[in-house]
């Protein structure tokens, strides 16, 4: 089973702290950062996969630091009926979850690689990409 994806949201007051480093050093957690948007002047967000024996202690530490933690409940789906395999999304998708298979030129969607940035939902010309909760 693939590790759970979680989303961290932190206020600008703690955006300058080395929080992720502590998760590794003090809780021995394996971290895969899927998406990070950290700006010292704004609220930051980070999507990551987290695994390790001290998972629960790690989450408690995050909450203590004032980080809001929530499971990544939204998922992007492709409506196979609607997708025409035009390809317009394949050079826009930042994680390579949507890609062109060659030489068939069919558009493929590898949802495990999706970081739910939802840019495909906006740009898909036939609205084949959908967000589900």
């Amino acid at each position: 089973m693939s590790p759970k994806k979680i989303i961290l949201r932190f206020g600008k007051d703690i955006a300058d702290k080395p929080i992720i480093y502590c998760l590794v050093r003090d809780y021995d957690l394996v971290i895969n950062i899927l998406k990070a948007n950290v700006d010292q002047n704004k609220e930051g967000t980070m999507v990551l996969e987290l695994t390790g024996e001290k998972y629960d202690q790690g989450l408690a530490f995050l909450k203590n630091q004032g980080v809001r933690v929530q499971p990544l409940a939204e998922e992007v789906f492709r409506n196979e009926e609607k997708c025409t395999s035009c390809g317009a999304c394949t050079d826009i998708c930042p994680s390579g979850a949507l890609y062109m298979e060659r030489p068939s030129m069919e558009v493929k969607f590898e949802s495990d690689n999706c970081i739910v940035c939802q840019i495909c939902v906006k740009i898909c010309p036939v609205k084949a990409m959908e967000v589900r909760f």
Partner: protein
Amino acid sequence: MAIEKTYAEINEKIKSGKAVVLTAEEVISLVEEKGITEAARSVDVVTTGTFGAMCSSGVFLNFGHSKPRIRMQKVWLNGVPAYTGIAAVDAYLGATELPEDDPCNNNYPGEFRYGGGHVIQDLVARKQVKLEAVSYGTDCYPRKELETFLTLDDLNEATLFNPRNAYQNYNCAVNLSGRTIYTYMGMLKPNLGNAHYSSAGQLSPLLNDPYFLTIGIGTRIFLGGGVGYVAWNGTQHFPGIQQDSAGKSYGPAGGTLSVIGDLKQMKPNWLVGTSFLGYGATLSVGLGIPIPILNEEVMRCVSVTDRDLYAPIVDYSEAYGQRIPGNLGFASYAELKSGRINLNGREIPTAPLSSYPKAREVAGILKNWIQKGEFLLTEPVKLLPSYKDEIASRTLEIKGI
């Protein structure tokens, strides 16, 4: 002896189930293996296909008369206005038309989620569509307003009539500026971040008949999942051969088609409402043309490959909008389809906007129809202008009175 076949001879073979039909993709390897002459001798028809956004599309509708009658000075279908400056209860619904309350690009980039193309798809899908009409009232057309629901089958006629489809070739769009731009060629990332193209290349109808040797007025075609016809040349039909500044040739471009067909026999997966973020709404159209192999010259044309066909690379951040002539070079469709092109020593990721798998499907369906004897070829009433006619595009000059 030179190979010459007539439309009548080819149709006889189709009727007797003996015609040899290949798609424009399949014929490439045959020609590579056997050569032009042998391929021209053995193949009767080559089918082409394309599926992409074709903005100059729309449908003529006749609603029938209500009791009491209304002239219908203005109409809306699911809130999208249609043109009614023609006879009573006739209208033309254009693919790019938007509801009057669409925020457009006021909230940039606008989404353009529903427009004329989407109404056309809903009609073809036999969904119920809301019709609203108003008029000023006359002695013969007393009613002043009307609101009802209808489906495609309730209409007297629904004639798809697309003034400019099946572009022979198209630009490869890039963005030289420092900000993301939203165009009819999709989202273009800053500083040459990506390159978008829109052609089926070696499967594309007009790239397989570059000199208009067979396609003309009355040519029977695959249109929107049903049968249609070439009505005329398309608007902005400027067929030519692309050249760079040194005079090197980069293949055909510039031709367009005007096509027509009965919407009632078309299918919603081949007429798809389409939205381009920050640009607008349109219709994606599946279109395919059979090419009769009349002689070796026609066979030579249909054996073209993605390696031989080129798209001009154009900057859409300034050059396109400001109508600055020239381009940044040419990229072959083989390069474009590889996922990367090289421009000024830089590798740029590419993506298409027209679906190659769907283009292949169109050519395959058309091949199947012909093989089963359900679809006969038509000899054009008149061929269309070609590069030999040297039609120059006119520009619009802004003048005072």
